[in-house]
């Protein structure tokens, strides 16, 4: 059995850890609120541009944009969104599992993949499994900016336009609620527009200067906004997951401290009992 002093030191060390995890929990909780606000702030843009795209896609323009045309799938691009830092429970692992399942399916069909990663953890994971990473962005911070999204996404869009890849998928985490985050995957390109309820009117825009220039820009912005949204949502997921993980860690530390205290007291009691019995034994001998 460990001596009383060692147990005391151990208790102090666990208490220190508990202080840290408790602080991290509170920090994550406040950051999560901010991240959620940012998530909601991105909605209006995404909703509006989605409406424009769905209308543009269902109207008959003289110009068919490549982003709207299905091609035979030979090579695929994947945009993977994960966190920069760890200590957020199984958030990244779950997402990687989902990504791997999908990659495995593509692999069986002989479809090669190219990956664009957001976040340190995604870069590390896809590097480790030996995937071809064509572009990456890390250190996005707690309030990501759209400027950080443009470069990596452009890389894949250019590859798509050049015919090097035939589809682009986006994998990230969905913020269901504070307790639940689920990995989700969507296809970015070819664009699958939502049905347009106004389509019955058969109206079309005046395109200025021309439908090609306008469509190029609209679809590009649309895809960027989807990726940006996923990144912002992932920050909210990260904070929520960290909050829960740290809450559990704090509770576990508390349980451990109780247990160690019990051992310490038992040890102390045993020492006293032993001393008394030694004194009594000694007195009897005299």
């Amino acid at each position, binding site marked *: 059995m460990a001596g009383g002093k060692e147990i005391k030191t151990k208790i102090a060390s666990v208490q220190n850890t508990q202080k840290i995890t408790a602080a991290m929990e509170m920090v994550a909780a406040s950051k999560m609120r901010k991240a959620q606000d*940012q998530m909601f*702030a*991105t909605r*209006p*843009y*995404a909703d*509006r*541009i989605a409406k*424009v795209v769905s209308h*543009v896609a269902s109207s008959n323009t003289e110009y068919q944009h490549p982003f709207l045309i299905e091609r035979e799938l030979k090579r695929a691009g994947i945009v993977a969104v994960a966190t920069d830092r760890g200590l957020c429970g*199984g958030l990244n*692992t779950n997402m*990687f*599992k989902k990504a*791997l399942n999908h*990659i*495995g399916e593509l*692999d069986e069909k002989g479809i090669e*993949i190219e990956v*664009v*990663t957001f976040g340190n953890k995604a*870069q590390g994971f896809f*590097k*480790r*499994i*030996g*995937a*071809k*990473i*064509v*572009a*990456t*962005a*890390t250190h996005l911070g707690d309030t990501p*900016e*759209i*400027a950080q999204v*443009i*470069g*990596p996404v*452009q*890389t894949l869009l*250019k590859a798509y336009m050049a015919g090097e890849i035939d589809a682009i998928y986006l994998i990230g985490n969905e913020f269901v609620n504070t307790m639940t985050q689920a990995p989700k995957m969507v296809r970015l390109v070819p664009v699958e527009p939502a049905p347009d309820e106004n389509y019955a009117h058969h*109206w*079309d*825009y*005046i*395109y*200025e*200067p021309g439908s090609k*220039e*306008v469509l190029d*820009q*609209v679809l590009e*912005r649309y895809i*960027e*906004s989807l990726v*940006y949204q996923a990144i912002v949502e992932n920050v909210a997921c990260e904070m929520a997951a960290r909050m829960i993980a740290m809450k559990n860690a704090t509770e*576990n530390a508390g349980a451990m401290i109780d247990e160690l205290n019990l051992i310490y007291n038992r040890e102390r009691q045993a020492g006293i009992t032993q001393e008394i019995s030694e004194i009594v034994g000694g007195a009897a001998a005299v």
Partner: protein
Amino acid sequence: MATIQVDIVSAEEQIFSGEAHMVYAPAVMGEIGVAPRHTPLISPLKPGEVRLDMGDGKEEFFFISGGIIEVQPHLVTVLSDTAIRAHDLDEAAALEAQKRAEDALADQQSDLDVAKAKAELAAAAAQVAAIKKLKKK
């Protein structure tokens, strides 16, 4: 006087939402003025100023660094860019992202090995399960 609903949004936040008598925006082909019941129109915007005539001589100004304007008879949406965009700038950003990937992958050895990665993930999941079991004891 008739008014038209105006929404100015950027990818990062909603900037303005309300009614205006007239909207002036810097479209790529030249400044356009949009009155209520304008025919549907969609056009990219240059960096510049979106001006809203609020009636009674009141005006609101918003600076945008480019974007898209979508006009429907009773609704104008300005999808504003927050970042400064130009073809060569985008290209530079793309190249930078690619370079980061190359730097990060400098010491990557093997080819894609899905089976191995799956095994590793399964091992990690088993670890988590084992820890959970231990905790319950």
